[in-house]
C-alpha cells in the first residue's frame, strides 16, 4: 500500500533553511530521518519543496485563468516536502509520520495508478 506523508513547516522552519545559524541543525534533522526511511526500504519517492513564497498558484474562475504569487491556501503552516512510502497500512504510515522532524504531518493513502 502506498501512502503520502505531507510535511507542513512553519515560517520558522522555512527561515531555518537559509539562516546560517540554524541551517545545519535543520538539515541534520532531515538527513537522519531520510537515512532511517531509506534503510527501512520503504521509500517510493521523496522531495523537499522550495519555500511557499516561491510558489505560483493557478486558479480558474469560470473561463478565466488567474495566476497569483504564493501558495494555496495562505496559512501559517505550509507544505514543505513530501514522502511517498510503501507500508502495509495507515498505522505504519502514522508511525513514520511521528518520526518526522516537523510538528505537522498529514498522511493520505495514494490512489492506485490509472490504467
Amino acid at each position: 500500500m502506498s501512502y503520502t506523508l505531507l510535511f507542513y513547516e512553519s515560517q520558522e522552519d522555512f527561515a531555518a533553511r537559509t539562516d546560517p545559524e540554524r541551517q545545519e541543525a535543520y538539515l541534520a534533522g532531515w538527513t537522519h530521518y531520510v537515512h532511517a526511511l531509506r534503510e527501512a526500504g520503504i521509500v517510493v519517492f521523496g522531495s523537499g519543496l522550495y519555500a511557499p513564497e516561491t510558489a505560483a498558484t493557478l486558479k480558474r474562475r469560470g473561463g478565466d485563468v488567474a495566476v497569483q504569487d504564493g501558495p494555496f491556501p495562505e496559512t501559517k503552516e505550509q507544505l514543505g516536502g513530501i514522502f511517498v512510502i510503501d507500508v502495509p497500512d495507515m498505522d505504519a504510515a502514522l508511525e513514520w509520520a511521528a518520526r518526522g522532524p516537523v510538528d505537522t504531518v498529514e498522511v493520505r493513502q495514494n490512489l492506485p495508478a490509472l490504467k
Partner: protein
Amino acid sequence: MESHRIVERTAREAYGRLLSYLTVRWRDPQDVEDALGDAFLSALEAWPKTGIPDKPEAWLLTIARRRLIDRARRVRVSAEALPTLLAMAEEAGHPSAPSGAEWPDERLAMMLLCAHPAIDPAMRTPLMLQTVLGLDAARIASAFIVKPSTMSQRLTRAKAKIRAERLTFEPADAEALPARLDSVLEAVYAAYGSGWDEAAAGSSGGSLAEEAIELGRLLLRFVPREPEVLGLLALMLHCEARRAARHDGEGNYVPLSGQDGTKWDRGLIAEAERHLHAASQAGRIGRFQLMAAIQSVHAQRLRTGRTEWDAIAQLYEGLVRMQPTLGAFVSRSAAVAEAYGADRGMALLASIPSAEVANYQPYWALAGHLYKRMHRYAEARSAYSRAIGLSADGAVRRFLTRQSDGLRMRP
C-alpha cells in the same frame, strides 16, 4: 489533586464499575455503553432539579438496566433477542443480583474479558482503557498513534465480537486463568509503555502512564497476593518515580545514568519496594518481578552512589530466558556493556538478527553509544543517525544529536 480531577476520577470510577457490572451479565458491551450513556444523560437532566440521589451509582444502574430491558423489548428478530433474554434470565437467577443498594465490583472480570484470547492482542489495552476507565476513543487513538476513526471501528468490532461469540471473562478451563491474568498484565503494561512515550514527547496533560498505574492498583485490590501483579505495579512505580528526572530545566532528555537522583520520587520508590518485597514472599518469579527488580537495582544508586551493573546484567539474563523480546535483548546488551565492557555488549547486540532491528530505535541508540566507546566513530555516527531518524520524541532526538555531534571531528 485539583477538585475537578477528583470529580472526573469519581465519575470515571463509577462508569467503569457500572459498565463492568452490566457487561459481565449482559454480555453486550456496546448495548451497555449506550444504556449507560442514556443513564448519565438522564442524570444531567434530573439531578439539577431533584438533587443528587443518596446512592448516585444505584440510581444510574437502575436507569441503565431499564434502558437495556427496553432495548431488548424493541429487538424484533427473535434470534437477536435470544442472547439478551438469556442474559436477563441469568441475571435474575444470580444470587447477588443487586436490589439497587450494593453490587459486586466486576472490574477484574471486565479486565479478564478484555484480555480474552479471541480479542486481538493489540486491541486488549484500548478496550480495557475504554471500558474500565472510560477513556474516549480519540484519546486512546492519539496515545497509540492510530487514526481515531480507525480506533473507534476497531473498538466497535471488538465489542461486537464479545456479543456475537458470547465471550466470557472466565476461561472454560480454570487452569487457563493464570495465562489470562498474564494477558491482563501485558495489556496494562502496554498502556504504561505508551504513556511513557507520550510523556517523553513532552506532553504535559495526564498521560496514559497514570491510567496504567491506576489499573495496576485496581488489579492489586482484587488479587493482593499475586506476585506478578505486585511485580508489575512495582515496575511501573519505579519508572514513574523518575519522571521528573528524565528532563532537565530546559526540557532536554536525561538518560537514566545521568539522572539527578535527588529528583526521584522517594515515596513512589518506597511503595515500589514494598510491593516487590511482598511479591518475593510468594517464591514464584516472573518477568514483571524481574523487570521491577532491575529497576530496584537502579534505585539503589540513591543509597550506594553506584549502579551494580553486574547484578542488572544477571537479571536481564533471566529475563531474556523468560521473555525473549527485542527490548529485553537490547537492554541486556546495554547492561553487559556497562558491567563487562563495550566489546561484550556489542557482541551480544550483533547477535540479534538484523531484519528485526531495522526500525527499532533503542537498538541503534545503543549501537551508537557502544561504537563510540569502542572508538569506531564512523559506525557510531551512522548508528546515531538511524536512531535519530527513528525517534518520535524531539527531546530524545536532540539528546542523540548532541551525542553524535561530539564525534564529528573524530576520524
